[in-house]
């Protein structure tokens, strides 16, 4: 089982993500320059945070049209787990692999702080080890993180279980005060219909070890441990198919 973290010019959370995957969770991980990325060599992929191509035109749009993201789309359609964190989420949105748009925060400020999200579904490749309703502490650090989609689409996404994370307060309620950027329905992360492609604005890789957290929590690790679990299950299914 091997996972890739794809680095674009301007990625800056790539090494943190590789560290957590390799040293905290224990999955074989390659850091791959986008031009050399071949999705067929990997069982899963993470697009890390940062400022790919300087956020020019719109955050994520230039990377979204790169050959590397065509490979990512192919992996997604094959059912392989695909995760986009922050700028990686923006790339998946701009590539049309996830629905909606991410606009400038409603406060028009770069928001960098610890927030709380609630896990809305445990059916995805990155939340299968987390119970629905579990509250996670993670940091956000972004300027363009306001999730927007038209009302009817959002309604369908709730119906189809595509809302993965929502910003909530300490009691686990999605309030306007707990929403750091003005996202519609406090949406912090979404997935595709199948649940194998997930994007979120918060940074699980910055909250996977207690030493990095003001509350000593390591909540973000569950995202990567769920990836491991997904890979294990997919591996077993594949081995089963090969035996039969």
């Amino acid at each position, binding site marked *: 089982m091997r996972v890739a973290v794809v680095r674009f010019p301007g990625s800056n959370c790539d090494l943190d993500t590789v560290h957590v995957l390799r040293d905290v969770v224990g999955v074989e991980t390659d850091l791959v320059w986008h031009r050399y990325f071949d999705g067929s060599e990997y069982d899963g992929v993470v697009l890390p945070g940062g400022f790919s*191509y*300087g956020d*020019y*035109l719109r955050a994520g*749009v*230039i990377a979204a*049209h*790169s050959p590397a993201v065509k490979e990512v789309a192919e992996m997604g359609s094959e059912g392989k787990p695909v995760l986009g964190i922050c700028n990686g989420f923006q790339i998946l949105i701009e590539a049309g692999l996830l629905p909606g748009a991410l606009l400038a925060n409603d406060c028009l400020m770069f928001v960098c702080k610890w927030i709380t999200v609630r896990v809305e579904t445990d059916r995805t490749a990155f939340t299968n080890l987390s119970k629905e309703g579990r509250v996670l502490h993670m940091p956000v650090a972004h300027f363009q993180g306001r999730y927007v989609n038209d009302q009817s689409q959002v309604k369908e996404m709730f119906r189809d279980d595509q809302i993965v994370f929502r910003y909530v307060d300490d009691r686990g309620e999605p309030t306007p005060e707990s929403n750091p950027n003005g996202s519609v329905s406090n949406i912090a992360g979404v997935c595709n219909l199948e649940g194998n492609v997930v994007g979120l604005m918060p940074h699980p890789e910055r909250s996977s070890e207690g030493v990095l957290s003001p509350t000593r929590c390591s909540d973000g690790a569950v995202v990567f441990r769920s990836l491991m679990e997904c890979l294990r299950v997919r591996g077993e299914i594949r081995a089963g198919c090969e035996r039969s």
Partner: protein
Amino acid sequence: MRTYVVEVVIENKPAARDPEGEAIWRDLIVRGGFEAVKSVRSGKYLRLSVEAGSEEESRDLTVKMCNDLRIYNPVVHVCTVSVKGVRT
């Protein structure tokens, strides 16, 4: 008095490099197969609704505003003001 639609475009002077325009051109447009596009300059775009007695007056007022409020930085920017018509 009528309401005129006035457009303000602010871009870098030709001598000032425009990394955003260059990246959009090289990494998105040319790589995306549109080699016929030979250059891109990025900038900021403002569309104003201006009350004035005439088209000329709306243009003059906008130019004065751009200068007085330093809507652009004359050291590095070129500012183009054009009246697009009357708001109906």
